[in-house]
């Protein structure tokens, strides 16, 4: 090869993609068996998860080694950045899907069910169903084809925990940016302090969210089974919470790498990629707070 600046790094044959496929395959096969109460399901999921954990250590370990031995030139770095950008774009559309569903229910299909508009004569399906959001009294009070629904007692309010969580996530975005400034200035104590604060805020968010779920299930009658309000509430907040969890794990890994001085002023794509991801999760939460909790 010519000098490292000129040639694009092409990795040697690697086992990790095949391992990744194996891990995913066992996980999804296991889940589809598990939800049908087939007893080997959970074991297949466990196997798949183990393979996946092994995969992450292996694949990312290779990438870190390659990065540390300066195999990536500027062009490779651009590929990583663009790849991350398109990945987050696809994630944005994943969340847009769920928001679009929420708007569709609230502005189109539920008003119809409640007898409004040109197509509202379908109100004859469940006469007397009046639409208001959140839907407390479901159209079919007998429980429909699924049997009984959980009766919603009280919808989730916008004050209290959700408001705290908004402040927590927004401040975590600030501390992360502060840490990034520290990295750029070469100020390690600012970097580490900022990272640890960000992780701490992420964990507090997670804990509060877990408590909120417990509260909703135990006291508010707000469950996956309490009709469309519960369904959209848990789908949106649940997938967001899942992304916060992934983001927190990534932040922890990056903090450990910061501690080992893996990053320099020029070369810290891994840090920035995780930071973009965290800001993306942050923005999704703002949408959630406005449309799920508040309005």
């Amino acid at each position: 090869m010519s000098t490292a600046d000129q040639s694009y790094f092409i990795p040697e044959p690697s086992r990790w993609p095949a391992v990744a496929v194996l891990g995913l395959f066992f996980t999804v096969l296991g889940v589809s068996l598990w939800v049908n109460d087939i007893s080997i399901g959970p074991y297949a999921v466990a196997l798949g998860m183990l393979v996946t954990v092994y995969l992450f250590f292996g694949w990312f370990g290779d990438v870190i080694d390659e990065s540390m031995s300066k195999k990536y030139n500027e062009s490779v770095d651009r590929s990583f950045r663009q790849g991350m950008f398109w990945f987050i774009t696809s994630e944005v559309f994943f969340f847009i899907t769920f928001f679009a569903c929420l708007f569709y229910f609230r502005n189109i299909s539920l008003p119809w069910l409640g007898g409004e508009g040109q197509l509202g004569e379908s109100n004859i399906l469940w006469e007397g169903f009046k639409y208001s959001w959140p839907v407390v009294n479901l159209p079919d009070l007998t429980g429909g084809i699924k049997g009984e629904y959980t009766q919603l007692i009280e919808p989730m309010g916008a004050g209290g925990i959700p408001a705290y969580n908004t402040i927590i996530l927004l401040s975590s975005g600030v501390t992360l940016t502060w840490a990034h400034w520290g990295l750029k200035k070469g100020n390690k104590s600012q970097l580490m302090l900022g990272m640890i604060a960000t992780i701490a805020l992420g964990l507090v968010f997670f804990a509060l969210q877990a408590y909120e779920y417990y509260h909703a299930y135990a006291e508010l009658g707000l469950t996956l089974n309490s009709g469309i309000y519960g369904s959209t509430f848990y789908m949106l907040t649940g997938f967001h919470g899942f992304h916060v969890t992934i983001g927190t794990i990534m932040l922890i890994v990056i903090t450990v790498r910061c501690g080992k001085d893996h990053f320099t002023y020029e070369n810290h794509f891994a840090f920035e990629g995780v930071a973009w991801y965290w800001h993306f999760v942050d923005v999704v939460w703002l949408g959630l707070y406005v449309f799920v909790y508040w309005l």
Partner: protein
Amino acid sequence: MSAVTHEEHHHDEPPKGFKRWLYSTNHKDIGTMYLVFALVMLFLGGAMAMLIRAELYMPGLQILDPDLYNNLVTDHALIMVFGVVMPAAAGMANWMIPMMIGAPDMALPRMNNMSFWLLPAAAVLLVSSLLVQFIPGTGTPVNTGWTLYPPLSVQVGLGMDLLIFTVHLLGISSIMASINIVTTILNMRAPGMKMMDMPLFVWAWFFTGLLLVIIMPVLAGGVTMLLFDRHFGTSFFDAAGGGDPVLFQHLFWFFGHPEVYVLLLPSIGVLGLVIPTFSRKPLFGYKPLVYFMGVLFVLGLIVWAHHQYTIGMSLGATMYFMIGTIMISIPIGLMIFNFIFTMWRGSMTFETPMLFAIAIILMFSFAGVTGVMLAVVPADLQYHDTYFVVAHFHYALIPGAVFGLYAGVFYWLPKWTGHMYDEKLGKIFFWWTTLAFNMTFFPQHFSGLAGMPRRIVDYNIQFIEFNQISSIGAFAFGLSHLLFLYIIIKTVKGGEKAPAKPWDGAQIGTPGLEWTLPSPPPFHSFTTPPKLK
């Protein structure tokens, strides 16, 4: 363009044994695997089509149980869309894009391999979803059609869950492949190659990749909600709990309509190379063609509900979707004119890829005409869910997507294998497959207009003649692919040596770098970036 040097050769030998394929980070090997996978799936999906046509040879129940019949209809569609056309197009993208733009490989080679190997895993799940119905106690088969509409899809058995996760794996695979291709195109071009210098095929895949990044997550979200409705008590698609089954149709077709362009655009890209080559004239209106694809990309994303005119939308929404859909015929029609003007007064020859290209222009335009008929709401209410629709989308997808890929296969086989294919056999294959295709699907326009519904195992006795012509045509169409397989195997094994540029018109108007490499190209091409004149 001539200064292609290979200073280092120590990496030019491919690794030996299974690791070459399973652990590959080489765009050519991964491209080959995609293409071989697509070929295998073509025969699997084709065998299902043969069973369907055998069943429909006569009215009444012949060989298949109605639920099994509908499951085969479901899997035939999913296999042909996700297992044949998309992998074949991705295989060509893998093989050709880095060579066309002068890149050493794809931007993210390891992720590239993962995109491919997810496909066999998904295929295993898909075939299991078909087979579990033979195990007692697993519920009804997936008799929903590939659209997986609830409430039926909430009620069927274990097969549905396996299919939901098949869709997830396919989605992850497509998103990763698209991220890789788009990044490669944006970041890996040889110094001096501008976006507006790229061969049309590269542009076509650029828009395809963008579309997939946008639409696959929506389908993933939709089937995830389906899974939750099936097992965790949510009410997304259950009106009794405040949901709406029609919402799934919106999510599905927000994915499903752009998916048509995902299947179509790579073939249009192939046309943009094949037609200038064999007309020996530069492409007429290269820039407008790129813009038309951009317009198609935008319009494709916002007209999905023309698949659902009968669901009871508001008048305003119906009008919007109708007008938007009819507008799509403008960029598509202009593209067709561009291709025709490219041929105008060219010095044309009719090798197999060119024959396919001309057939596409003719037969795909036919699908365009029936498409406008279907876009018109009052007319569509009559055609909806009849064999007219089946005829329409097979005319759109077989010439539009599959024949485009055949043209690509014949166009690039010499480059891939280093051998010329047998031109005579290629032409026989072309005439056989084109005539058989028309014999299969042309009569379905008539049975559809006469009211024969789709996705039903039995039919009224008045449709017998049309269906028998269709079935005989289908068997001939299926058989023609054995010849296709034979031609490919023969070309891989040997034949006349192909020069670096097997078609004398190949470089006209397209500054792609693929023809500057020998046929077959070395294992690693462009380890140092080539210099453009």
